[in-house]
């Protein structure tokens, strides 16, 4: 297992000037040994580029990659001793499950009985002991992905296991079982695991720390709690949570706080940073009242959606949509009704030029 330190950038063109020329903007990041990390972001945000740089399949155009302090930038994936599970199951069709699992050790000329013992252990952990002698080609997609994972785990000294959106081809109802298996394995083996995905449920469930990325930049690294409670960037606020944070323009003025050109008195326990230009509030924390209260904003109800487990009310504060989440049992407004939203409370976040200010 290894601690991975990145201090690099990767550009499409030889001498990049603008941000757009970079697949990965200059970044410095450390993946603790034994930690479970997720690289989360929309397609084209650079997460797979970063994974391929860590695995050694791609050389960064500038900077270094260090495993346990050693510079491995020029080293091949084999020399870095990493394992990778790809988007589509990659197995050796003509081999049985046992031969697939033992293949990396066979290439290292490890004695036969030691391979058999190790393969048995890993098969036990992957709950595939009963399939060892079956031909790998005939298995289902999720079992094939387990074999890919097993090929990495079978090496006792594997430095890190990398996942490139491994659940893409798995049936929806099987996904959570594979996620549970990955979490159990991480619990037992304490390996460094790095998981690339565009799906926040996979990222937040699997990883201790999630790296949220957009347009080639890591905008925040934190636990699920940090990303939910204190998004460091408006993109994280929007991306995490379904539906994500609602944002409103804000301006400190003599007569009080001007939010989307409504002047509102600020409750005592909430302190608004001077340089804040935008306010972000999650639908779960927004409270809605039929009549005006201190520190509330006037809004009109545009859409009410009964999503079964909760009611989603979309209001318009001067053309900016703001979403509120109500429990099925609580009071709900009617279409077009004028309501009052309590946007300022302990959970509200303030941003200046998209960056969190406290």
């Amino acid at each position: 297992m290894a601690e991975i330190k990145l201090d690099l950038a990767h550009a499409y063109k030889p001498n990049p000037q603008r941000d757009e020329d970079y697949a990965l903007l200059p970044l410095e990041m450390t993946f603790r040994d034994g930690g479970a990390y997720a690289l989360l972001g929309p397609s084209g945000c650079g997460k797979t580029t970063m994974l391929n740089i860590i695995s050694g399949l791609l050389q960064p155009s500038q900077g270094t990659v260090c495993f346990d302090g050693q510079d491995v930038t020029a080293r091949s994936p084999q020399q870095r001793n990493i394992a990778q599970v790809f988007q589509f199951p990659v197995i050796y069709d003509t081999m049985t499950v046992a031969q697939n699992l033992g293949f990396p050790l066979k290439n290292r000329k490890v004695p036969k009985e030691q391979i058999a013992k190790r393969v048995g252990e890993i098969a036990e952990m992957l709950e595939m002991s009963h399939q060892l002698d079956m031909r790998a080609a005939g298995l289902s997609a999720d079992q094939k992905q387990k074999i890919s994972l097993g090929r990495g785990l079978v090496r006792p000294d594997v430095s890190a296991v990398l996942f490139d959106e491994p659940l893409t081809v798995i049936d929806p109802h099987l996904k959570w079982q594979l996620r549970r298996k990955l979490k159990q394995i991480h619990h037992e083996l304490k390996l460094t695991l790095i998981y690339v995905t565009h799906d926040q449920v996979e990222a937040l469930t699997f990883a201790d720390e999630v790296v949220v990325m957009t347009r080639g930049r890591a905008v925040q690294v934190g636990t699920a709690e940090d990303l939910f409670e204190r998004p460091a960037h408006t993109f994280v606020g929007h991306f995490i949570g379904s539906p994500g944070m609602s944002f409103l323009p804000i301006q400190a003025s003599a007569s009080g706080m001007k939010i989307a050109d409504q002047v509102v008195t600020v409750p005592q326990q909430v302190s608004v940073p001077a340089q804040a230009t935008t306010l972000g509030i999650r639908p779960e924390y927004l409270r809605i009242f039929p009549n005006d209260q201190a520190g509330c904003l006037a809004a009109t109800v545009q859409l009410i959606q009964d999503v079964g487990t909760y009611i989603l009310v979309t209001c318009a504060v001067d053309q900016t949509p703001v979403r509120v989440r109500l429990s099925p049992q609580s009071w709900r407004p009617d279409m077009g009704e004028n309501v009052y939203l309590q946007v300022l409370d302990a959970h509200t976040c303030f941003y200046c030029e998209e960056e969190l200010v406290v």
Partner: protein
Amino acid sequence: MNNTDKPSNQKAWLLVLPVLICVAFSAILPLMTVVNYSVQDIFSPTRRIFVGTEWFTMVMRDSELHAALARQVTFSLSVLAVQIPLGVALALCMPASGWKASATLVLVALSLLIPWNVVGTIWQIFGRTDIGLLGHTLQQLGFDYSYTGNPTHAWVTVLIMDVWHWTPLVALLAYAGLRSIPDAYYQAARIDGASKWAVFRYIQLPKMRGVLMIAVLLRFMDSFMIYTEPFVLTGGGPGTSTTFLSQYLTQKAVGQFDLGPAAAFSIIYFLIILLFCFVLYNWMQNVGKSQQQG
């Protein structure tokens, strides 16, 4: 072609009709005449008598035909034995992408574009001891090589000519098979520390299986009906050492003009080809299917 979820629509027959008419005119009609001749003895267009399977039995017992068939089978098998491994090796050495790949592809495939008789002519010139580079060089090295005089020399030269002419087909098919392998397989192999041989044995060969089968069957059938190249190079000689089935049939049909045996033999020849076609057709089905599963 025929996976189940395609809608069935009998109107599609209208689209296929033109093909049927053309191919019927140029295939069924002639085949009927061949069958017609194979069961009759024709003295003149007006006088014919039905002889049943006499021609067939005669052809079956014709020792000369057996010799020609034996030569043909050995030739076709040796063609496979040389061209399949050579073609695969060539495909493995060809560059994967970029202009180098295109240039190599064109140079390698050039021999496939040359009219079959010109291939014969090229080797006819190339092999002559007086004016040919190959013949002259061998003679300088003190090796009295003559593809017109010595039967084994002739046979080997025809084989080398066929290898020179058709190996690129096997190489192209193998190359296409290699190109269909997703890059992730090579990455996984590198990560698992697989040796070059292991990569070939466990990734490239299994993926090329479907394509190679097509190459084997195509090459076997095409070589099984070879006519022009040996005819131009050695004219079937010296003696009958390089007279293969097609040439034997042509001599019988057009040369000695005894239609009965020639027609009977044509039918037998066609049935042999039909058998191999059946194997190729079924194999191509699962190539199509295995590609879908990917």
